[in-house]
């Protein structure tokens, strides 16, 4: 069938089953927007900034497991999208981002709103395309979706010159993709799997180290089953919160820079790490030479480049976590003796009793940790929690009772402030039956605050809980600990009127200073069905603890901060 390139873009989006596209029009992408106007196969949500469009598509993808789609114009529209692409790339989130480009004849002439999109995005996309002919367009769109969601997922950019979206061509959307140069491996090497299984049976102190790959591979049921069969304890990374479920007695907690004491000690003393889709990030390992000194390592990852990148691995297994865990379980299920690891579990339980994750509550001032626990008590399983980046993010990861994967959505790898609110909008669009709450700070929320308008216009009632300490809190904490309290440019005392700001954009706002007020505000926000700011005045100088100072050994945690 003959149709324009712009129509092909819409038809491909529909064929891929995408229900919602986030975007912002402009000159070079206008042909496509003209077709969007004419069709009703998918909804388009107009964000108020291209960065937010990509973060919203990202939040949608993380919440649903589907590919998120964003659309932007050339030049500045595209460069605004870069932070979104880099955020998704670092956390391996499947996105297809479609950008307009100046016409082919203008490429290379420094035309109006021309920028080398494929050049700029090359290091922060899984793959990218500059479409050079209408004849390639359908195939490229199909490949883009396939590459985004297969193997180790990631964002794919398709940059389309304006004359191609205007040109007519034959639309033959491929059913399958066969790329001779790209063959992700899912099953794992059976010999390595066998060896790893034997190592698990022999170990005395094995530890599951669960990363974001376990979420991406939808492996949580298999992992919970594996744990329940073997009674091997588990730690989660920031990206894996919810895989085990907060109530699981074998979940030791989150490890790393702000992990709990028992988790970091578990990693320091284990004799066998079973890494499931984790990548030994520097925020997890601390000082490498002191990291897991007694452990052999089974590293299961779909991306071979992750294996052996940071640490030497004894049992490398390239494959999908879900499939490999099933295979290991089948091999050991009749042989494993859960009692074998009892002593190890006892040791970890004692570590946890010694220094449990805790904070000092107060009647005078709201503690941010209390607020997060309270959200957990009031909405718990019914909520999806997004977050921005900083102290609130760490408290969220530490204190919220995550019950399932995809319930916790945050920019873990890139650490993008301004991610939480648009991601919450995307998550709410993907999962309208859930309450979506963005736990944010008074610093982060102002990056992408314009999305109040988007949320109001489209009736997307996400709740932003601003843990307001009038500081750029995490940087302030480092200044307190490591820079002699020289609070260089982190005092955010000059603030907008949050309630009026939300109201001015069609939302609702609450100022909260007590526990009672918080309960009422949250109940009212859930009831109110409007985009909401709950501005919570919290203890200005609360610190995120425990803390492994950057570059320090994982077992050397600051457990409390003593005022000198």
């Amino acid at each position, binding site marked *: 069938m003959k149709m324009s390139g712009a129509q092909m873009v819409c038809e491909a989006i529909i064929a891929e089953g995408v229900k919602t596209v986030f975007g912002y029009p402009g000159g070079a992408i206008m042909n496509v927007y003209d077709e969007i106007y004419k069709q009703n196969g998918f909804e388009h949500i107009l964000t108020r900034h291209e960065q937010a469009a990509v973060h919203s598509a990202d939040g949608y993808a993380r919440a649903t497991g589907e590919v998120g789609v964003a659309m932007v114009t050339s030049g500045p529209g595209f460069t605004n999208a870069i932070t979104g692409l880099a955020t998704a790339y670092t956390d391996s989130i499947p996105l297809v981002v479609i950008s307009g480009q100046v016409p082919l004849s203008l490429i290379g002439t420094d035309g109006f709103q021309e920028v080398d999109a*494929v*050049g700029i995005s*090359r*290091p922060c996309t*899984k*793959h990218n395309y*500059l479409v*050079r002919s209408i004849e390639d367009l359908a195939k490229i769109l199909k490949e883009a979706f396939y*590459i985004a969601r297969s193997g180790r997922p990631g964002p794919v950019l398709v940059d389309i010159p304006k004359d191609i979206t205007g040109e007519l061509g034959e639309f033959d959307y491929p059913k399958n993709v066969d*790329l*001779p*140069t*790209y063959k992700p491996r899912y099953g794992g090497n059976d010999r390595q799997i066998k060896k790893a299984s034997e190592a698990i049976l022999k170990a005395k102190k094995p530890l599951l180290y669960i990363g974001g790959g376990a979420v991406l591979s939808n492996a949580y049921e298999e992992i919970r089953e594996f744990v329940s069969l073997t009674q091997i304890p588990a730690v989660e990374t920031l990206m894996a919160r919810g895989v085990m479920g907060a109530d699981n007695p074998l979940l030791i907690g989150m490890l790393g820079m702000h992990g709990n004491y028992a988790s970091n000690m578990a990693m320091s003393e284990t004799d066998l790490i079973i890494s499931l889709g984790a990548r030994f990030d520097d925020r997890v390992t601390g000082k490498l030479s002191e990291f897991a000194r007694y452990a052999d390592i089974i590293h299961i990852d779909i*991306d*071979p*480049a992750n294996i*052996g*990148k940071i640490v030497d691995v004894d049992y490398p297994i390239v494959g999908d976590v879900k499939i490999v865990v099933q295979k290991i379980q089948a091999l050991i299920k009749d042989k494993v003796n859960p009692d074998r690891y009892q002593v190890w579990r006892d040791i970890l339980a004692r570590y946890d009793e010694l220094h449990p994750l805790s904070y000092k509550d107060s009647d005078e001032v709201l503690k941010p940790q209390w607020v997060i626990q309270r959200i957990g008590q009031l909405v718990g399983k019914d909520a999806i929690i997004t977050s921005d980046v900083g102290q609130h993010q760490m408290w969220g990861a530490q204190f919220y009772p995550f019950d399932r994967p995809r319930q916790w959505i945050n920019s873990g790898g890139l650490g993008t402030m301004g991610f939480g609110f648009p991601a919450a909008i995307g998550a709410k669009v993907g999962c309208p039956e859930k309450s979506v709450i963005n736990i944010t700070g008074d610093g982060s929320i102002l990056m992408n605050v314009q999305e109040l308008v988007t949320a109001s216009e489209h009736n997307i009632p996400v709740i932003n809980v601003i843990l307001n300490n009038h500081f750029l809190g995490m940087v302030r904490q480092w200044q307190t600990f490591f820079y002699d309290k020289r609070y260089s440019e982190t005092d955010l005392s000059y603030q907008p009127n949050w309630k009026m700001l939300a109201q001015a954009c069609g939302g609702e706002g609450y100022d909260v200073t007590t526990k009672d007020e918080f309960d009422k505000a949250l109940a009212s926000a859930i009831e109110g069905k409007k985009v909401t700011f709950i501005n919570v005045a919290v203890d200005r100088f609360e610190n995120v603890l425990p803390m492994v100072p950057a570059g320090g050994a994982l077992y050397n945690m600051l457990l409390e901060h003593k005022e000198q």
Partner: protein
Amino acid sequence: MDKVRRVISVIVANEAQVLARVSGLFAGRGYNIDSLTVAPIPDSDLSHMTIVTKGNKRVIEQIVKQLHKLIPTFKVIEHDEMVEKEMVLIKFPIEKPISDIQALCQAYNGAIVNVGTDMFIAMVADESVRVEHFIEATKRYQPIEVVRSGVVAMER
């Protein structure tokens, strides 16, 4: 860990951007490129790249894996069993003793390939170490210009 020199062959789809993807990977991750050559493989839609790099064991392993991870990469070959050759062109002023230089070329399986009114050009194709020796040996004739091709390699 000690840095070693490595010759890596990469078979890639012969398409736009592919050289930029490879060189960008090296630049972005801080790997060295000592030399890089690329040309299409006859009767196919693939190209053969030969990259000479230096790094410790972990870095070389990462380079291979990261190269393989690029979507247009078909195959990455990295081992000791490579036949490698490199070419050098050296230009001399016409006043220099052409027969001496020709004799030198012959010792390195090379030849004088061009003679003009005020200069002549010698060519040698051999392993990199031999090429370096040849360049060293010609220095006493004060060459005007030296151009090396970079390494091409093939599995044995």
